[in-house]
């Protein structure tokens, strides 16, 4: 019996073997680290997602072994499948970095930049992306687009002004629930996410739109403004749930459960979708069997060097500079270093129990 021949693909000078049909993005994720292009719309668990935000654009400098011609345009790595012998440039391509900078700028021109009052701050993909790829200053001098806040059901708030139109929530509502009542109205830069006739969304799994949203456009009303994510300590927990697998992440401070979310993998994607009951109604420690501190991935600003040792573990990243010839990647900026409330010299893992503002005071 013949086995399926794997394809060899080289991304930023690192070669990896993947099964035919793999996308460039997933091949890059197999390599890991900064070689993986940022993805604001693609979500491996959602069928048909991707291709829209254009942050994952890469340059294909060699199409394949058979047809070595380069591709004329940058391609969306999340929706382009690899060919055998393909050579791809991500962070080693000036063209890619320039285009990406442009895309980040475009994503931000109509974004309110209200991070200080946004619940997503600290775990926002857009925040991370702009630290990594954006410029300090915007060249946009016009009024930003705004929308009214909207409650879509008792648990979820839609703050459309912050939306980047990634369509993830639409696919989630479409694919996880049986009703199609969450979608897009209008077009172009006046397009907006909405529910059918402003109806509230009710379905056991609809809460997952909060987790897939890369920005603070869909937030958990049972958590809003209760706490900053970087003050809460993430722990993995589970319960015997009749509806979902019951594997969640609790965001705790002391003995208090502030928020329940799904567990996310190193690419910021939900591991198992959870049900509304687990998310919105089980907010006491006695509801859960606590497994231990969560492994927080590199993508989140809350991760940077602050969860080492006994509280949590940060996954070891390969040292990219050793691997990539060309441009040295910029490190993620740390939210602790730009916020007044937080002091960068405090290692959260050194603090017993959950962190409070007080813990930072004595350093001032």
């Amino acid at each position, binding site marked *: 019996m013949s086995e399926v021949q794997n394809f060899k693909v080289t991304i930023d000078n690192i070669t990896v073997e993947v099964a035919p049909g793999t996308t460039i993005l997933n091949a890059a994720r197999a390599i890991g680290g900064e070689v993986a292009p940022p993805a604001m719309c693609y979500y491996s668990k959602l069928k048909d997602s991707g291709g829209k935000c254009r942050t994952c654009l890469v340059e294909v400098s060699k199409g394949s072994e058979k047809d070595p011609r380069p591709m004329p345009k940058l391609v969306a790595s999340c929706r382009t499948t690899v060919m055998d012998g393909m050579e791809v440039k991500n962070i080693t391509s000036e063209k890619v970095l320039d285009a990406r900078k*442009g895309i980040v700028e*475009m*994503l931000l021109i109509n974004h309110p930049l209200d991070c200080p009052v946004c619940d997503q701050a600290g775990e926002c993909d857009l925040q991370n992306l702009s630290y990594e790829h954006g410029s300090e200053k915007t060249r946009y001098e016009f009024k930003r687009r705004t929308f009214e806040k909207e409650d879509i059901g008792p648990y979820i708030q839609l703050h459309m002004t912050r939306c980047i139109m990634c369509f993830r929530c639409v696919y989630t509502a479409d694919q996880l629930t049986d009703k199609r009542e969450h979608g897009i109205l209008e077009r172009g830069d006046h397009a907006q996410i909405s529910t059918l006739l402003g109806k509230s969304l009710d379905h056991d799994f609809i809460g997952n739109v909060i987790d897939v949203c890369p920005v603070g456009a869909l937030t958990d009303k049972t958590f809003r403004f209760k706490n900053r994510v970087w003050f809460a300590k993430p722990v993995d927990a589970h319960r015997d749930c009749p509806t979902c697998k019951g594997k969640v992440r609790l965001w705790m401070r002391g003995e208090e459960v502030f928020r329940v979310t799904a567990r996310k993998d190193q690419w910021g994607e939900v591991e198992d979708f959870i049900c509304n009951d687990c998310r919105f109604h089980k907010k006491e420690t006695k509801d859960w069997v606590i497994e231990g501190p969560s492994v927080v991935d590199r993508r989140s600003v809350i991760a940077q060097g602050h969860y080492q040792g006994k509280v949590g573990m940060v996954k070891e990243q390969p040292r990219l500079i050793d691997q990539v010839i060309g441009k040295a990647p910029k490190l993620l900026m740390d939210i602790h270093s730009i916020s007044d409330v937080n002091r960068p010299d405090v290692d959260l893992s050194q603090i017993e129990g959950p962190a409070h503002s007080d813990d930072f005071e004595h350093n001032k």
Partner: protein
Amino acid sequence: MKLLLQNAHIEGIRFYDAYRKNGGYQSVEKAFKMSTDAIVEEVKKSGLRGRGGAGFPTGMKWSFLAKPEGVPRHLVCNADESEPGTFKDRYLMEFLPHLLIEGLIVSSYALGSNATYIYIRGEYAWITDILEHAIAEAKQNGWLGKNILGSGFDCEIYVHRGAGAYICGEETALIESLEGKRGNPRLKPPFPAIQGVWMRPTVVNNVETLAAIVPIINMGGEEYAKIGVGRSTGTKLLSVCGNVNKPGVYEIDMTISVEEFIYSDKYCGGIPNGKRLKACIPGGSSVPIVPANLLFKTAKGETRMMNYESLSDGGFATGTMMGSGGFIVLDEDQCVVRHTMTLARFYNHESCGQCSPCREGTGWMYKILKNIENGQGKLSDIDLLWDIQRRIEGNTICPLGDAAAWPVAAAIRHFRDEFEWHVLNPEESQRRNYGIAHYADPLPMVGVV
């Protein structure tokens, strides 16, 4: 030479009897005696290129159509025609509806489409009625329905009205819309030839392309290819608007010069009121604008002809494109800044909003252009515009992003001094137009890069 419109003046040609009496539906009779492969072969030989804008060879497109066993295939006629400046399909459908139906029957037979769709621009409401009447007449006379002419081939044609979005002219957005969904372009691949309407293999062609199948079958692909020049074979419809004496729809074989087309009495009849020519957009609003001094002669000094190759000679630096044939003429009184702003507003309004560069960039460009036009611009805005268009172009899902970027790029490339004049003379620019400057025909070439 006319192949499509030669009978357009005949009384009652819109209706079946007159159309049939004047040689109509002969190509169907001829085609049904041929094999489907032979028809595709004739279309290939004809060198016909898509008339919807991209100019892709039709025969080649047809031969890419997947033919999996047991899966229906579809032909879809793109009658969405919403590009500013383009109104040739409207003319053809309004006056010669049976020509399109005839072309559709032959093409459906060649491609094996038993259910063929005409996706028509929603605003063309009265043409929908004309087409449906023509389809009913064709059906009464046995050209549609079951077992047409005893050939064993069944075909129905359905007219589907769009709801007023330019983007639904893009073939994959059109397919989504036809399926009843939001008209967002799909990511390619897969191409419609493999997975189109309802995931079935589909060919999408422009109205004029499909009408041209009739003369190709009647006269044979080789004869058709003899008309025209090089890879620009056959005849092309052009819709002319703007500052000309005789706006309207013209059919040309692609061997005349641009100068002749604008000034000859047979076509546009020159510029009214003794004004001089400033610039021209020869292929619909998406293609680059060219100043008069680059319009009649290419950068190499050759006479510019009305065909695909010659119009695009020199690339975007000094050339433009044939596009969809929406020929827009600007005289010396027109303001390029205002004109560019209008187009930017259009693309901003028509972006579907799926991908970030187009959704956000089109609005940004429009706002900057509005400032410049209103005397509130800065010199740095011109470079910023250039930067924005550069980062939209090529980075989007569908070509609307490019279509939005090119007009801005071309306007800045050729008319930068007019933009600067607007910025530096904010008050004067509110009172008068920049005028012809050095863009005019008799003056030497300036600023050609």
